[in-house]
């Protein structure tokens, strides 16, 4: 028996060494030996489990403090802990995922803040410690603060919040000048350069409870332009709330400029709108399928406009 155990330990040690080697080699951005890696995984079922555990540990130790000085004795810049979307070193939607090998897509704003930035077309989900969930659309910047676990700031873009309600500790979302306080809720927030929209698919939220204090019930959408007038409430179909998550965008009288903005953010397509159509109200449902041209075709057909292919995307025009 003892010799069996010893043999198993030796075998496991050998597999562990091989897994280590794969993880070390894959840290090289030029690693390309994926076929050999596949072969190795297929050789024995234990290979997969040990590799996963090893690669996962390798991600976790990215949280270790970075040495204070460079190996040459001069101060070095700390390594980038984040991928800032378009400026990321791989520059792609997958940058965050790829850099997952090196460190997750987090930015240390201050000691306790976490900034999450997605590029257009990228969707991410955050699971918070209290069981709440935030689904983040593309082209979005969201800030969290570990000192304020019931708070999130939507700097720009769009996110769907599924908040676990706590009566004495409401969850607050800040978006521009809007402060949204949940009263037991699922809601989608869009932060634009000049305004904010929030649509509620479950529960109730309070908009700026210490100022206008508008209650937004389930099935309602609140639109507000920064510094201009009162917030407007509309009826909406709750099925359509946060439709970007399931690839279905439903509109009833939304300006084409806003629709194009939503599409760009959700799909990563670059869609410009000429001034002669940007104010046109749009009604209808757009399916986001793999065939992106199809979505453009649907949009132009439903809106009675045209789309011109440009160097880097589309231009909507009359």
């Amino acid at each position: 028996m003892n010799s069996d155990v010893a043999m198993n330990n030796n075998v496991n040690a050998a597999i562990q060494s091989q897994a280590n080697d794969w993880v070390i080699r894959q840290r090289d951005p030029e690693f390309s030996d994926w076929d050999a890696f596949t072969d190795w995984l297929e050789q024995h079922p234990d290979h997969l489990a040990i590799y996963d555990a090893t690669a996962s540990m390798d991600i976790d130790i990215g949280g270790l403090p970075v040495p204070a000085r460079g190996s040459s004795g001069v101060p070095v810049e700390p390594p980038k802990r984040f991928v800032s979307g378009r400026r990321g070193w791989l520059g792609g939607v997958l940058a965050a995922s790829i850099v997952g090998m090196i460190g997750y897509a987090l930015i240390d704003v201050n000691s306790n803040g976490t900034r999450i930035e997605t590029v257009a077309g990228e969707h991410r989900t955050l699971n918070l410690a209290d069981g709440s969930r935030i689904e983040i659309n593309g082209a979005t910047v969201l800030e969290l603060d570990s000192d304020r676990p019931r708070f999130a700031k939507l700097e720009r873009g769009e996110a769907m919040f599924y908040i676990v309600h706590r009566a004495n500790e409401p969850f607050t979302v800040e978006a521009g000048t809007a402060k949204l306080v949940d009263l037991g809720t699922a809601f989608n927030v869009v932060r634009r350069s000049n305004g904010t929209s929030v649509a509620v698919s479950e529960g109730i939220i309070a908009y700026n409870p210490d100022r206008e204090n508008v209650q937004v019930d389930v099935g309602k959408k609140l639109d507000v332009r920064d510094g201009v007038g009162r917030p407007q409430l509309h009826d909406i179909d709750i099925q359509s709330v946060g439709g970007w998550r399931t690839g279905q965008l439903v509109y009833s009288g939304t300006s084409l400029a806003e629709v194009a903005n939503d599409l760009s953010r959700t799909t990563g397509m670059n869609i410009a709108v000429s001034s002669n159509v940007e104010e046109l109200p749009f009604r209808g449902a757009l399916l986001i399928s793999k065939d992106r041209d199809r979505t453009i075709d649907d949009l132009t057909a439903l809106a009675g406009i045209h789309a011109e292919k440009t160097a880097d995307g589309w231009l909507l025009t009359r």
Partner: protein
Amino acid sequence: MNDAKERMAPSQGIEGMLLANRDRLIRFLLARGAGEAAEDMFQELWLRLSARPGGPIADPLSYIYRAANNLVLDRYRSARQAGLREQDWGAVSVGAEPAVDQALISREQLIHVDVAIDALGERCARIFRSFRLEGKSQRIIAAELGVSLSTVESDLRKAYDMLAALRRQFDEQ
């Protein structure tokens, strides 16, 4: 215009690469433990990569493999966080992204790791930190420290062996 479709460029670049290597990638996803979710994961890979803004990639196929590997690893971590048994993780719904901000080891364990790295000895600790935390290549580390590449390699192996031993301890805790 109405003839917009005809003016579209044919599927090429990374999407063409995905299609042309579909079988290989599915095999890879299966080898990576994706199980029945392999097809779904391929779809997700497709969605993510086709939504990616343009830009040159030196080696598209490696880029795709790396993306696939990270996708699977994300799911694995997500499932571990959700407390599922390891063999069930393939069932985690595709499209549900993991919590990016949750480490699987605690802050205390991380301090433990930091101390254990110091215990590897000065050269080994330095080589490991340069490699893993500062992102330097093995070649550059060898040049900076004036040691051979094989010294760097063997020190890294030593460090990763130590990490594996620590990980097993953590798992038993």
